[in-house]
């Protein structure tokens, strides 16, 4: 343990000075246990979110209206898989293993983003995930691209670049529906109504005074509070929603000249707690699909492992 290290205080001071100067922390560097643990937790949860995040939209690939939309959606879902792999690699630089993280996910021990446990009953949901959910994600990830941990920050830069395509395709899809007949417009409004509060929950509950969060901010693991990230999202998305003549499902959502920001009603934080801890509308189904995919791919992994062993034996 760090605390038995007699030079701990000295090392901690050096570490915090470096971070205060804006230097990045790299894998081999000395770091406090808590810094390592927090980052492994954040990066693995982030990776799981990308992997599970393939599922709500992936189910629409066979039903996408038209070949261009289908190709776009395939590309987006492939990106999510790629982002998951990038983030697992980043977490591995701190001593976690991909196998262990996967195992934690499949056995329900790991957490991932709340939003992916909600259903996607209509095609409009695909557009709303790209437009609303991915906008919220990019605001969070742009902040994380400034993280003090080098491998996380670098992964985020690549991911943000690709996420901007996700937002664009989602917005384009919504605009197409918005120009359609009243029934099509109603599917968009219905999707906004269902996704609004879960999307607000993504950046996490307030309560920034917890010592844990304060420490993450001091160590620049994150550079903004949950409330700041959420307010940024609301300020950006509300005018966009209204420009397409849709309603924000919150009568208190008005621009406040005093603060310069939009006021909004806080989501139900108990719901977030339930969904994050496994009791959302579709948690069980999401994990069942992941488990089946993992089992279905087992023979491929085993065949490749056998081939590797044999070629090493020959060499």
């Amino acid at each position, binding site marked *: 343990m760090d605390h038995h290290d007699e030079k701990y205080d000295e090392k901690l001071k050096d570490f915090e000075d470096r971070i205060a100067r804006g230097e990045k922390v790299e894998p081999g560097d000395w770091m406090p246990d808590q810094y390592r643990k927090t980052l492994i937790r954040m990066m693995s949860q982030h990776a799981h979110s990308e992997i599970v995040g393939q599922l709500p939209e992936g189910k629409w690939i066979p039903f996408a209206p038209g070949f261009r939309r289908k190709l776009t959606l395939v590309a987006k879902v492939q990106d999510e898989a*790629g982002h998951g792999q990038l983030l697992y690699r980043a977490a591995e630089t701190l001593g976690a293993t991909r196998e262990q993280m996967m195992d934690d996910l499949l056995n329900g021990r790991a957490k991932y983003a709340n939003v992916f446990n909600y259903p996607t009953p209509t095609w409009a949901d695909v557009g709303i995930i790209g437009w609303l959910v991915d906008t919220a994600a990019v605001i969070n990830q742009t902040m994380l691209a400034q993280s003090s941990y080098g491998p996380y920050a670098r992964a985020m830069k690549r991911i943000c670049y690709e996420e901007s395509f996700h937002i664009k395709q989602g917005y384009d899809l919504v605009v197409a529906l918005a120009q359609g007949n009243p029934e099509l417009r109603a599917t968009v409004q219905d999707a906004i109504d269902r996704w609004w509060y879960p999307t607000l929950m993504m950046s996490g509950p307030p309560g920034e005074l917890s010592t844990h969060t304060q420490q993450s901010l001091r160590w620049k693991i994150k550079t903004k509070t949950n409330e700041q990230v959420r307010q940024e999202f609301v300020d950006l998305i509300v005018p966009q929603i209204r420009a397409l003549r849709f309603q924000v499902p919150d009568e208190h959502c008005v621009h406040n000249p005093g603060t310069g920001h939009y006021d909004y009603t806080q989501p139900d934080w108990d719901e977030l707690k339930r969904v994050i801890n496994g009791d959302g509308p579709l948690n069980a189904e999401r994990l069942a699909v992941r488990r089946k995919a993992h089992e279905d791919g087992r023979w491929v*992994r085993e065949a490749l*492992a056998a081939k590797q062993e044999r070629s090493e034996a020959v060499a």
Partner: protein
Amino acid sequence: MTDTQWETYEVFHQAKKGDAHVYVGSVHAPDPHLALQMARDQFARRLKCVSLWVARSRDITATDYQDEDFFAQTTDKSYRDPKAFGAPEKLDEHQA
């Protein structure tokens, strides 16, 4: 868990012939050939790429950030820098 934790390979990406290969990240793979395919899917599915290198992570020997002495310069080496030389562009300006 009896599954397979594959090795990692570091990936170097060349955007066009004549450019340097640039380090972009790493992938898991069971062998070098598949590492190239994984690297293509991960790092070359958008940006233009004409060549990829992969190298097993454990084959890379690196310096240690803690060992700052490794790069320490004991004497003034400014003479290695073109900016260290103040000779005029044209001799006639100097003489005028």
